[in-house]
Protein backbone atom coordinates (compact mmCIF):
# COMPACT_ATOMS: atom_id res chain seq x y z
CA UNK A 1 0.00 0.00 0.00
CA UNK A 2 1.36 3.38 -0.99
CA UNK A 3 -0.21 6.71 -0.12
CA UNK A 4 0.58 10.24 -1.13
CA UNK A 5 -0.42 12.99 1.26
CA UNK A 6 -0.52 16.54 -0.04
CA UNK A 7 2.50 15.76 -2.18
CA UNK A 8 3.88 19.02 -3.52
CA UNK A 9 6.92 19.66 -5.65
CA UNK A 10 8.12 23.15 -6.45
CA UNK A 11 11.09 23.99 -8.62
CA UNK A 12 12.96 27.27 -8.38
CA UNK A 13 12.06 30.19 -6.18
CA UNK A 14 10.96 33.80 -6.53
CA UNK A 15 9.87 34.69 -10.04
CA UNK A 16 10.97 31.40 -11.57
CA UNK A 17 9.00 29.38 -8.99
CA UNK A 18 7.04 26.62 -10.70
CA UNK A 19 4.64 24.37 -8.87
CA UNK A 20 4.89 21.04 -10.68
CA UNK A 21 2.83 18.95 -8.27
CA UNK A 22 0.24 20.66 -6.14
CA UNK A 23 -1.00 18.76 -3.11
CA UNK A 24 -1.59 15.32 -4.59
CA UNK A 25 -3.58 12.95 -2.42
CA UNK A 26 -4.23 9.39 -3.36
CA UNK A 27 -3.39 5.88 -2.34
CA UNK A 28 -2.89 2.60 -4.10
CA UNK A 29 -4.06 -0.44 -2.14
CA UNK A 30 -2.36 -3.84 -2.26
CA UNK A 31 -3.57 -5.73 -5.29
CA UNK A 32 -4.66 -2.54 -7.03
CA UNK A 33 -3.45 -1.05 -10.30
CA UNK A 34 -3.81 2.70 -10.14
CA UNK A 35 -3.21 4.56 -13.38
CA UNK A 36 -2.23 8.20 -13.60
CA UNK A 37 -2.81 9.73 -17.02
CA UNK A 38 -2.11 13.19 -18.27
CA UNK A 39 -0.68 15.12 -21.17
CA UNK A 40 3.06 15.75 -21.35
CA UNK A 41 4.02 18.52 -18.99
CA UNK A 42 1.31 17.57 -16.52
CA UNK A 43 3.90 16.51 -13.94
CA UNK A 44 3.87 12.74 -14.54
CA UNK A 45 7.64 12.23 -14.52
CA UNK A 46 8.06 14.43 -11.46
CA UNK A 47 5.39 12.35 -9.75
CA UNK A 48 7.28 9.17 -10.69
CA UNK A 49 10.54 10.61 -9.36
CA UNK A 50 8.90 11.63 -6.10
CA UNK A 51 7.31 8.22 -5.66
CA UNK A 52 10.50 6.23 -6.16
CA UNK A 53 12.36 8.85 -4.15
CA UNK A 54 14.74 9.96 -6.87
CA UNK A 55 13.56 13.43 -5.93
CA UNK A 56 12.38 14.71 -2.59
CA UNK A 57 8.98 16.36 -2.46
CA UNK A 58 8.96 20.02 -1.41
CA UNK A 59 6.21 19.21 1.08
CA UNK A 60 3.78 16.42 1.79
CA UNK A 61 4.56 12.77 2.24
CA UNK A 62 5.01 9.48 0.46
CA UNK A 63 3.96 6.64 2.76
CA UNK A 64 4.83 3.04 1.96
CA UNK A 65 3.02 0.58 4.21
CA UNK A 66 2.52 3.42 6.66
CA UNK A 67 6.16 4.56 6.79
CA UNK A 68 6.92 8.10 5.68
CA UNK A 69 9.76 7.84 3.18
CA UNK A 70 10.07 11.47 2.25
CA UNK A 71 11.82 12.49 5.47
CA UNK A 72 14.56 9.87 5.45
CA UNK A 73 18.27 10.59 5.29
CA UNK A 74 20.12 9.92 2.04
CA UNK A 75 21.39 6.58 3.36
CA UNK A 76 18.03 5.41 4.71
CA UNK A 77 16.52 6.49 1.41
CA UNK A 78 18.74 4.05 -0.43
CA UNK A 79 17.37 1.23 1.68
CA UNK A 80 13.80 2.50 1.40
CA UNK A 81 14.00 2.58 -2.39
CA UNK A 82 14.30 -1.18 -2.30
CA UNK A 83 10.67 -1.49 -1.22
CA UNK A 84 9.64 0.16 -4.49
CA UNK A 85 10.38 -1.51 -7.81
CA UNK A 86 10.50 0.77 -10.83
CA UNK A 87 9.92 -0.15 -14.44
CA UNK A 88 11.36 2.52 -16.65
CA UNK A 89 10.63 3.56 -20.19
CA UNK A 90 12.22 1.45 -22.91
CA UNK A 91 15.79 2.77 -22.53
CA UNK A 92 16.24 1.45 -19.00
CA UNK A 93 18.52 -1.52 -19.70
CA UNK A 94 22.31 -1.49 -19.43
CA UNK A 95 23.53 -2.14 -22.97
CA UNK A 96 26.69 -4.01 -21.99
CA UNK A 97 24.96 -6.42 -19.62
CA UNK A 98 23.04 -9.52 -20.57
CA UNK A 99 19.39 -9.88 -19.61
CA UNK A 100 20.46 -11.93 -16.58
CA UNK A 101 23.08 -9.37 -15.55
CA UNK A 102 20.53 -6.57 -15.86
CA UNK A 103 18.12 -8.43 -13.61
CA UNK A 104 20.97 -9.08 -11.18
CA UNK A 105 21.82 -5.37 -10.77
CA UNK A 106 19.75 -4.65 -7.63
CA UNK A 107 21.07 -7.86 -6.05
CA UNK A 108 24.65 -6.86 -6.88
CA UNK A 109 24.09 -3.46 -5.31
CA UNK A 110 22.68 -5.11 -2.24
CA UNK A 111 25.71 -7.41 -1.99
CA UNK A 112 23.91 -10.72 -2.48
CA UNK A 113 26.14 -13.77 -2.89
CA UNK A 114 26.69 -15.02 -6.45
CA UNK A 115 24.80 -18.24 -5.74
CA UNK A 116 21.87 -16.37 -4.26
CA UNK A 117 21.86 -13.92 -7.17
CA UNK A 118 21.99 -16.68 -9.74
CA UNK A 119 19.06 -18.52 -8.18
CA UNK A 120 16.92 -15.39 -7.83
CA UNK A 121 17.71 -14.20 -11.37
CA UNK A 122 16.73 -17.60 -12.77
CA UNK A 123 13.47 -17.45 -10.84
CA UNK A 124 12.71 -13.91 -12.04
CA UNK A 125 13.49 -14.59 -15.68
CA UNK A 126 11.24 -17.60 -15.57
CA UNK A 127 8.52 -15.51 -13.94
CA UNK A 128 8.53 -13.09 -16.89
CA UNK A 129 8.91 -15.87 -19.47
CA UNK A 130 12.46 -15.15 -20.60
CA UNK A 131 14.44 -18.09 -19.24
CA UNK A 132 15.80 -18.78 -22.73
CA UNK A 133 17.03 -15.19 -23.13
CA UNK A 134 19.21 -15.02 -20.01
CA UNK A 135 22.42 -14.51 -21.96
CA UNK A 136 21.00 -12.21 -24.63
CA UNK A 137 22.04 -8.58 -24.73
CA UNK A 138 19.39 -5.84 -24.81
CA UNK A 139 19.92 -5.13 -28.52
CA UNK A 140 19.06 -8.78 -29.26
CA UNK A 141 15.67 -8.48 -27.54
CA UNK A 142 12.41 -7.03 -28.82
CA UNK A 143 10.87 -4.01 -27.13
CA UNK A 144 8.42 -6.20 -25.23
CA UNK A 145 11.17 -8.58 -24.10
CA UNK A 146 13.31 -5.66 -22.92
CA UNK A 147 10.40 -4.45 -20.81
CA UNK A 148 10.00 -7.93 -19.35
CA UNK A 149 13.65 -7.79 -18.29
CA UNK A 150 12.89 -4.39 -16.75
CA UNK A 151 9.97 -5.90 -14.85
CA UNK A 152 12.07 -8.82 -13.61
CA UNK A 153 14.70 -6.34 -12.41
CA UNK A 154 12.08 -4.23 -10.65
CA UNK A 155 10.90 -7.32 -8.78
CA UNK A 156 14.39 -8.51 -7.80
CA UNK A 157 14.26 -7.24 -4.23
CA UNK A 158 10.66 -8.35 -3.64
CA UNK A 159 9.11 -4.88 -3.43
CA UNK A 160 5.53 -4.41 -2.33
CA UNK A 161 5.10 -1.42 -4.65
CA UNK A 162 5.68 -1.38 -8.38
CA UNK A 163 6.00 1.92 -10.18
CA UNK A 164 5.61 1.80 -13.93
CA UNK A 165 6.86 5.01 -15.50
CA UNK A 166 5.64 5.03 -19.13
CA UNK A 167 6.65 1.37 -19.30
CA UNK A 168 4.50 0.59 -22.33
CA UNK A 169 5.06 3.84 -24.18
CA UNK A 170 6.59 3.18 -27.56
CA UNK A 171 5.68 -0.52 -27.60
CA UNK A 172 3.53 -2.01 -30.35
CA UNK A 173 -0.04 -2.96 -29.35
CA UNK A 174 0.70 -6.68 -28.97
CA UNK A 175 3.72 -6.11 -26.74
CA UNK A 176 1.74 -3.60 -24.73
CA UNK A 177 -1.05 -6.15 -24.24
CA UNK A 178 1.39 -8.84 -23.14
CA UNK A 179 3.12 -6.49 -20.68
CA UNK A 180 -0.27 -5.46 -19.32
CA UNK A 181 -1.27 -9.10 -18.84
CA UNK A 182 2.00 -9.80 -17.07
CA UNK A 183 1.51 -6.85 -14.72
CA UNK A 184 -2.01 -7.99 -13.85
CA UNK A 185 -0.77 -11.50 -13.22
CA UNK A 186 2.01 -10.22 -10.94
CA UNK A 187 -0.43 -7.95 -9.15
CA UNK A 188 -2.62 -10.96 -8.37
CA UNK A 189 0.20 -13.36 -7.46
CA UNK A 190 2.32 -11.00 -5.40
CA UNK A 191 -0.42 -8.69 -4.12
CA UNK A 192 1.47 -5.67 -5.44
CA UNK A 193 0.32 -2.07 -5.40
CA UNK A 194 1.02 -0.89 -8.93
CA UNK A 195 1.19 2.78 -9.82
CA UNK A 196 0.97 2.94 -13.59
CA UNK A 197 1.94 6.29 -15.06
CA UNK A 198 1.20 6.74 -18.75
CA UNK A 199 -0.08 9.10 -21.40
CA UNK A 200 -1.80 6.28 -23.32
CA UNK A 201 -5.56 6.17 -22.66
CA UNK A 202 -5.95 2.81 -24.44
CA UNK A 203 -3.48 1.15 -22.09
CA UNK A 204 -5.31 2.54 -19.06
CA UNK A 205 -8.48 0.78 -20.23
CA UNK A 206 -6.59 -2.50 -20.38
CA UNK A 207 -4.71 -2.27 -17.13
CA UNK A 208 -6.27 -0.01 -14.51
CA UNK A 209 -8.58 -0.67 -11.59
CA UNK A 210 -8.60 3.02 -10.73
CA UNK A 211 -7.47 6.02 -12.64
CA UNK A 212 -6.60 9.64 -11.95
CA UNK A 213 -6.05 12.41 -14.42
CA UNK A 214 -3.14 14.71 -13.72
CA UNK A 215 -3.19 18.13 -15.30
CA UNK A 216 -0.94 21.07 -14.44
CA UNK A 217 0.11 19.36 -11.23
CA UNK A 218 -3.44 18.74 -9.98
CA UNK A 219 -5.51 15.60 -9.94
CA UNK A 220 -8.54 16.90 -11.78
CA UNK A 221 -10.57 13.72 -11.69
CA UNK A 222 -10.16 10.25 -10.26
CA UNK A 223 -12.12 7.15 -9.41
CA UNK A 224 -12.64 3.50 -10.19
CA UNK A 225 -12.22 2.94 -13.92
CA UNK A 226 -15.66 1.40 -14.49
CA UNK A 227 -17.38 4.16 -12.50
CA UNK A 228 -15.77 6.82 -14.64
CA UNK A 229 -16.68 4.96 -17.81
CA UNK A 230 -20.33 4.66 -16.79
CA UNK A 231 -20.58 8.30 -15.76
CA UNK A 232 -21.75 10.19 -18.84
CA UNK A 233 -20.65 13.48 -17.27
CA UNK A 234 -17.08 12.36 -16.63
CA UNK A 235 -14.54 14.11 -18.85
CA UNK A 236 -11.99 11.47 -18.03
CA UNK A 237 -14.48 8.70 -18.82
CA UNK A 238 -15.15 10.28 -22.19
CA UNK A 239 -11.45 10.77 -22.87
CA UNK A 240 -10.80 7.11 -22.09
CA UNK A 241 -13.49 5.87 -24.47
CA UNK A 242 -14.06 8.65 -26.95
CA UNK A 243 -17.15 8.60 -29.15
CA UNK A 244 -15.89 8.07 -32.70
CA UNK A 245 -17.47 9.67 -35.73
CA UNK A 246 -20.88 8.20 -36.48
CA UNK A 247 -22.97 7.41 -39.53
CA UNK A 248 -25.47 9.98 -40.79
CA UNK A 249 -29.06 9.68 -39.59
CA UNK A 250 -31.81 9.36 -42.14
CA UNK A 251 -34.32 12.12 -42.73
CA UNK A 252 -35.61 13.93 -39.67
CA UNK A 253 -34.34 11.44 -37.11
CA UNK A 254 -32.90 12.97 -34.00
CA UNK A 255 -29.44 11.85 -32.99
CA UNK A 256 -29.17 10.44 -29.49
CA UNK A 257 -26.01 9.81 -27.52
CA UNK A 258 -26.58 6.87 -25.25
CA UNK A 259 -24.24 5.63 -22.51
CA UNK A 260 -24.27 2.56 -20.30
CA UNK A 261 -24.94 3.67 -16.77
CA UNK A 262 -26.30 0.68 -14.88
CA UNK A 263 -24.17 -2.32 -14.01
CA UNK A 264 -26.57 -4.68 -15.73
CA UNK A 265 -27.69 -3.42 -19.10
CA UNK A 266 -29.43 -6.12 -21.12
CA UNK A 267 -27.63 -6.94 -24.37
CA UNK A 268 -30.93 -6.79 -26.30
CA UNK A 269 -31.77 -3.29 -25.12
CA UNK A 270 -32.01 -1.92 -28.67
CA UNK A 271 -34.87 -4.32 -29.56
CA UNK A 272 -36.55 -3.57 -26.26
CA UNK A 273 -36.25 0.16 -26.91
CA UNK A 274 -37.71 -0.22 -30.42
CA UNK A 275 -40.63 -2.25 -29.10
CA UNK A 276 -41.26 0.25 -26.32
CA UNK A 277 -41.20 3.30 -28.58
CA UNK A 278 -42.84 1.65 -31.59
CA UNK A 279 -40.47 3.23 -34.10
CA UNK A 280 -37.42 1.92 -35.93
CA UNK A 281 -34.09 2.56 -34.17
CA UNK A 282 -31.00 3.21 -36.30
CA UNK A 283 -27.63 2.39 -34.77
CA UNK A 284 -25.25 4.98 -36.14
CA UNK A 285 -22.28 4.10 -34.00
CA UNK A 286 -21.62 1.98 -30.96
CA UNK A 287 -18.85 0.56 -28.84
CA UNK A 288 -19.46 -1.94 -26.10
CA UNK A 289 -16.93 -3.95 -24.13
CA UNK A 290 -16.36 -5.58 -20.79
CA UNK A 291 -13.84 -3.93 -18.52
CA UNK A 292 -12.96 -5.34 -15.10
CA UNK A 293 -16.06 -7.52 -15.23
CA UNK A 294 -18.50 -4.73 -16.04
CA UNK A 295 -20.04 -3.96 -19.41
CA UNK A 296 -19.43 -0.40 -20.48
CA UNK A 297 -20.33 1.26 -23.72
CA UNK A 298 -21.94 3.99 -25.63
CA UNK A 299 -24.02 4.20 -28.76
CA UNK A 300 -25.21 6.85 -31.14
CA UNK A 301 -28.79 6.25 -32.22
CA UNK A 302 -31.09 7.77 -34.81
CA UNK A 303 -34.68 7.96 -33.54
CA UNK A 304 -37.46 9.92 -35.27
CA UNK A 305 -41.00 10.97 -34.47
CA UNK A 306 -41.01 10.35 -30.74
CA UNK A 307 -41.25 12.80 -27.88
CA UNK A 308 -37.69 13.18 -26.48
CA UNK A 309 -38.98 12.73 -22.94
CA UNK A 310 -40.29 9.28 -23.86
CA UNK A 311 -36.94 8.30 -25.32
CA UNK A 312 -35.05 9.40 -22.22
CA UNK A 313 -37.53 7.61 -20.00
CA UNK A 314 -37.44 4.35 -21.93
CA UNK A 315 -33.62 4.36 -21.96
CA UNK A 316 -33.40 5.16 -18.27
CA UNK A 317 -35.58 2.13 -17.56
CA UNK A 318 -33.02 0.02 -19.44
CA UNK A 319 -30.07 1.41 -17.45
CA UNK A 320 -28.89 3.88 -20.06
CA UNK A 321 -28.57 7.64 -20.11
CA UNK A 322 -29.19 9.64 -23.23
CA UNK A 323 -28.86 13.14 -24.57
CA UNK A 324 -30.28 14.51 -27.79
CA UNK A 325 -27.68 15.97 -30.13
CA UNK A 326 -27.97 19.60 -31.03
CA UNK A 327 -27.54 20.04 -34.76
CA UNK A 328 -24.22 21.84 -34.49
CA UNK A 329 -22.48 18.65 -33.44
CA UNK A 330 -23.78 16.61 -36.35
CA UNK A 331 -21.14 15.47 -38.82
CA UNK A 332 -21.08 17.18 -42.19
CA UNK A 333 -21.64 13.98 -44.12
CA UNK A 334 -25.41 13.87 -43.65
CA UNK A 335 -26.06 16.47 -46.32
CA UNK A 336 -27.35 14.80 -49.49
CA UNK A 337 -26.23 11.53 -50.92
CA UNK A 338 -26.70 9.16 -48.01
CA UNK A 339 -30.49 9.29 -47.83
CA UNK A 340 -30.59 6.01 -49.72
Amino acid at each position, binding site marked *: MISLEKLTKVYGRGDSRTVVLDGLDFSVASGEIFAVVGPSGAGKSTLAHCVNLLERPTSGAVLVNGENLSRLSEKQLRVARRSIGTIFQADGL*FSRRTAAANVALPLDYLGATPAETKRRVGELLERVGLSDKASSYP*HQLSGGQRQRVGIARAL*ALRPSILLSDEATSGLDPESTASIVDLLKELRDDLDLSILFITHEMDTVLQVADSVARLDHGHIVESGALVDLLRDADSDLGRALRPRRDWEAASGADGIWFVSYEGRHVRPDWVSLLGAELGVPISILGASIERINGVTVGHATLGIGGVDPARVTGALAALGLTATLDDAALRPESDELEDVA
Partner: protein
Amino acid sequence: MIAALVPSNATVPIPDIPALVFPALGDTLIMVGIVMAIVIAVGIPLGAIVHNLAPGGLFERAVPYSILSWTVSIGRSLPFLILMASIVPFTRLITGTNIGIAAAVVPMSIAGIAFFTRIVENSLRSVPPSLVNVAKASGASTLQIIRTAQLSEAVPSIIGGITINTIAMIEYSAIAGTIGAGGIGYVAVTYGYQRFDHNVMIATIVILVALVSAVQITGDRLVRLTTPHARDRH
Protein backbone atom coordinates in the same frame (compact mmCIF):
# COMPACT_ATOMS: atom_id res chain seq x y z
CA MET B 1 74.93 4.05 -25.60
CA ILE B 2 73.25 5.45 -28.65
CA ALA B 3 76.00 8.02 -29.02
CA ALA B 4 78.61 5.27 -29.19
CA LEU B 5 77.13 4.05 -32.42
CA VAL B 6 77.44 7.40 -34.08
CA PRO B 7 80.50 8.06 -36.17
CA SER B 8 80.55 11.86 -36.35
CA ASN B 9 79.79 13.48 -39.63
CA ALA B 10 78.61 10.37 -41.38
CA THR B 11 75.33 8.71 -42.13
CA VAL B 12 74.58 5.46 -40.35
CA PRO B 13 75.18 2.48 -42.61
CA ILE B 14 71.96 0.67 -43.38
CA PRO B 15 72.93 -2.59 -41.61
CA ASP B 16 73.50 -0.59 -38.41
CA ILE B 17 70.09 1.06 -38.48
CA PRO B 18 68.22 -1.71 -36.61
CA ALA B 19 70.71 -1.57 -33.76
CA LEU B 20 70.06 2.16 -33.52
CA VAL B 21 66.33 2.18 -34.01
CA PHE B 22 65.05 -0.85 -32.09
CA PRO B 23 66.46 0.07 -28.67
CA ALA B 24 64.99 3.53 -29.27
CA LEU B 25 61.64 1.92 -30.01
CA GLY B 26 61.97 0.06 -26.71
CA ASP B 27 62.59 3.34 -24.90
CA THR B 28 59.53 4.86 -26.54
CA LEU B 29 57.39 1.90 -25.52
CA ILE B 30 58.61 2.12 -21.91
CA MET B 31 58.02 5.85 -21.77
CA VAL B 32 54.54 5.67 -23.32
CA GLY B 33 53.68 2.60 -21.23
CA ILE B 34 54.58 4.24 -17.93
CA VAL B 35 52.82 7.46 -18.92
CA MET B 36 49.63 5.69 -20.04
CA ALA B 37 49.51 3.65 -16.82
CA ILE B 38 49.66 6.89 -14.81
CA VAL B 39 47.24 8.67 -17.16
CA ILE B 40 44.61 5.92 -16.93
CA ALA B 41 44.98 5.49 -13.18
CA VAL B 42 44.53 9.20 -12.55
CA GLY B 43 42.41 10.24 -15.53
CA ILE B 44 39.52 7.81 -15.05
CA PRO B 45 38.74 8.81 -11.46
CA LEU B 46 39.41 12.46 -12.27
CA GLY B 47 37.16 12.35 -15.35
CA ALA B 48 34.40 10.71 -13.29
CA ILE B 49 34.78 13.36 -10.58
CA VAL B 50 34.65 16.25 -13.06
CA HIS B 51 31.64 14.70 -14.80
CA ASN B 52 29.74 14.33 -11.54
CA LEU B 53 30.69 17.75 -10.16
CA ALA B 54 29.26 19.28 -13.34
CA PRO B 55 25.66 20.51 -13.41
CA GLY B 56 23.39 17.45 -13.47
CA GLY B 57 26.08 15.21 -11.98
CA LEU B 58 25.77 12.99 -8.93
CA PHE B 59 27.45 15.48 -6.60
CA GLU B 60 26.99 18.69 -8.50
CA ARG B 61 29.15 21.54 -7.04
CA ALA B 62 29.68 24.67 -9.08
CA VAL B 63 32.89 26.01 -7.53
CA PRO B 64 34.99 22.83 -7.33
CA TYR B 65 33.80 21.99 -10.84
CA SER B 66 34.95 25.33 -12.24
CA ILE B 67 38.33 25.05 -10.51
CA LEU B 68 38.96 21.51 -11.76
CA SER B 69 37.65 22.24 -15.20
CA TRP B 70 39.83 25.33 -15.56
CA THR B 71 42.89 23.47 -14.35
CA VAL B 72 42.30 20.77 -16.93
CA SER B 73 41.73 23.37 -19.64
CA ILE B 74 45.00 25.11 -18.82
CA GLY B 75 46.79 21.78 -19.03
CA ARG B 76 45.11 21.18 -22.39
CA SER B 77 45.79 24.62 -23.86
CA LEU B 78 49.58 24.74 -23.46
CA PRO B 79 51.50 23.31 -26.41
CA PHE B 80 53.43 20.31 -25.08
CA LEU B 81 56.85 21.79 -25.78
CA ILE B 82 56.02 24.85 -23.69
CA LEU B 83 54.41 22.83 -20.91
CA MET B 84 57.49 20.63 -20.79
CA ALA B 85 59.87 23.58 -20.60
CA SER B 86 57.80 25.50 -18.08
CA ILE B 87 57.63 22.74 -15.50
CA VAL B 88 61.31 21.80 -15.54
CA PRO B 89 61.79 22.87 -11.88
CA PHE B 90 58.85 20.70 -10.87
CA THR B 91 60.17 17.78 -12.91
CA ARG B 92 63.57 18.12 -11.28
CA LEU B 93 61.94 18.24 -7.85
CA ILE B 94 60.17 14.95 -8.48
CA THR B 95 62.73 12.98 -10.46
CA GLY B 96 65.96 14.75 -9.53
CA THR B 97 66.85 15.20 -13.19
CA ASN B 98 65.63 17.04 -16.22
CA ILE B 99 66.78 14.69 -18.94
CA GLY B 100 66.04 11.10 -19.77
CA ILE B 101 62.94 8.91 -19.61
CA ALA B 102 62.13 9.75 -15.99
CA ALA B 103 62.16 13.44 -16.74
CA ALA B 104 59.98 13.01 -19.82
CA VAL B 105 57.38 10.99 -17.92
CA VAL B 106 56.43 13.95 -15.69
CA PRO B 107 55.36 16.49 -18.32
CA MET B 108 53.90 13.74 -20.54
CA SER B 109 51.77 12.48 -17.67
CA ILE B 110 50.53 15.96 -16.84
CA ALA B 111 49.58 16.68 -20.45
CA GLY B 112 48.17 13.18 -20.85
CA ILE B 113 46.03 13.38 -17.70
CA ALA B 114 44.56 16.71 -18.77
CA PHE B 115 43.77 15.27 -22.20
CA PHE B 116 42.40 12.00 -20.87
CA THR B 117 40.26 13.63 -18.17
CA ARG B 118 38.36 15.44 -20.91
CA ILE B 119 38.06 12.23 -22.93
CA VAL B 120 36.63 10.34 -19.94
CA GLU B 121 34.27 13.20 -19.13
CA ASN B 122 33.08 13.22 -22.73
CA SER B 123 32.62 9.43 -22.77
CA LEU B 124 30.54 9.57 -19.59
CA ARG B 125 28.40 12.30 -21.07
CA SER B 126 27.45 9.97 -23.92
CA VAL B 127 25.95 7.37 -21.53
CA PRO B 128 22.17 7.82 -21.28
CA PRO B 129 21.57 9.69 -18.00
CA SER B 130 18.44 7.59 -17.45
CA LEU B 131 20.71 4.70 -16.43
CA VAL B 132 21.81 6.68 -13.38
CA ASN B 133 18.16 6.81 -12.31
CA VAL B 134 17.79 3.10 -12.94
CA ALA B 135 20.80 2.40 -10.71
CA LYS B 136 19.56 4.79 -8.01
CA ALA B 137 16.10 3.26 -8.03
CA SER B 138 17.71 -0.18 -7.78
CA GLY B 139 19.40 0.86 -4.55
CA ALA B 140 22.93 1.67 -5.76
CA SER B 141 25.37 3.76 -3.72
CA THR B 142 27.14 6.66 -5.40
CA LEU B 143 30.25 4.57 -6.06
CA GLN B 144 28.14 1.73 -7.44
CA ILE B 145 26.34 4.17 -9.73
CA ILE B 146 29.62 5.54 -11.08
CA ARG B 147 31.02 2.05 -11.58
CA THR B 148 27.99 0.38 -13.18
CA ALA B 149 25.81 3.09 -14.71
CA GLN B 150 28.60 5.38 -15.90
CA LEU B 151 32.06 3.84 -16.32
CA SER B 152 31.00 0.33 -17.25
CA GLU B 153 28.59 1.56 -19.91
CA ALA B 154 31.26 3.92 -21.26
CA VAL B 155 33.99 1.25 -21.53
CA PRO B 156 34.05 1.06 -25.36
CA SER B 157 34.14 4.82 -25.62
CA ILE B 158 36.88 5.07 -22.97
CA ILE B 159 38.94 2.43 -24.79
CA GLY B 160 38.56 4.50 -27.95
CA GLY B 161 39.82 7.44 -25.89
CA ILE B 162 42.78 5.45 -24.56
CA THR B 163 43.71 4.67 -28.18
CA ILE B 164 43.66 8.34 -29.14
CA ASN B 165 45.52 9.23 -25.96
CA THR B 166 48.22 6.59 -26.51
CA ILE B 167 48.85 7.86 -30.01
CA ALA B 168 49.07 11.41 -28.70
CA MET B 169 51.60 10.20 -26.09
CA ILE B 170 53.72 8.57 -28.82
CA GLU B 171 53.76 11.97 -30.50
CA TYR B 172 54.64 13.71 -27.22
CA SER B 173 57.43 11.20 -26.60
CA ALA B 174 58.99 12.36 -29.87
CA ILE B 175 58.82 15.94 -28.68
CA ALA B 176 60.23 14.89 -25.32
CA GLY B 177 63.01 13.25 -27.32
CA THR B 178 64.34 16.70 -28.08
CA ILE B 179 65.21 17.20 -24.40
CA GLY B 180 67.20 14.02 -24.47
CA ALA B 181 64.49 11.68 -23.31
CA GLY B 182 65.61 9.05 -25.77
CA GLY B 183 63.23 6.99 -27.85
CA ILE B 184 62.31 7.08 -31.51
CA GLY B 185 61.75 10.82 -31.44
CA TYR B 186 65.25 11.45 -30.23
CA VAL B 187 66.72 9.35 -33.02
CA ALA B 188 64.55 11.04 -35.61
CA VAL B 189 65.56 14.51 -34.46
CA THR B 190 69.27 13.97 -33.93
CA TYR B 191 69.96 11.79 -36.96
CA GLY B 192 67.20 12.44 -39.39
CA TYR B 193 66.69 16.12 -38.82
CA GLN B 194 69.99 17.50 -37.56
CA ARG B 195 72.24 15.33 -39.76
CA PHE B 196 70.02 14.89 -42.79
CA ASP B 197 70.39 11.12 -42.48
CA HIS B 198 67.57 10.08 -44.77
CA ASN B 199 67.87 6.39 -44.08
CA VAL B 200 67.42 6.86 -40.34
CA MET B 201 64.64 9.34 -40.98
CA ILE B 202 62.78 6.85 -43.18
CA ALA B 203 63.34 4.05 -40.69
CA THR B 204 61.90 6.12 -37.83
CA ILE B 205 58.93 7.14 -39.96
CA VAL B 206 58.22 3.53 -40.89
CA ILE B 207 58.45 2.47 -37.25
CA LEU B 208 56.23 5.30 -36.03
CA VAL B 209 53.59 4.59 -38.68
CA ALA B 210 53.68 0.89 -37.83
CA LEU B 211 53.48 1.61 -34.10
CA VAL B 212 50.59 4.03 -34.41
CA SER B 213 48.74 1.65 -36.75
CA ALA B 214 49.24 -1.22 -34.33
CA VAL B 215 47.87 0.85 -31.45
CA GLN B 216 44.89 1.97 -33.56
CA ILE B 217 44.06 -1.54 -34.79
CA THR B 218 44.32 -2.98 -31.28
CA GLY B 219 42.18 -0.18 -29.90
CA ASP B 220 39.51 -0.62 -32.58
CA ARG B 221 39.41 -4.34 -31.97
CA LEU B 222 38.99 -3.85 -28.23
CA VAL B 223 36.20 -1.35 -28.79
CA ARG B 224 34.40 -3.91 -30.92
CA LEU B 225 34.95 -6.64 -28.37
CA THR B 226 33.48 -4.55 -25.58
CA THR B 227 30.43 -3.36 -27.55
CA PRO B 228 27.80 -6.13 -27.60
CA HIS B 229 26.01 -4.99 -30.75
CA ALA B 230 29.26 -4.46 -32.68
CA ARG B 231 30.44 -7.93 -31.65
CA ASP B 232 27.50 -9.56 -33.43
CA ARG B 233 28.48 -8.21 -36.80
CA HIS B 234 32.00 -9.61 -36.79
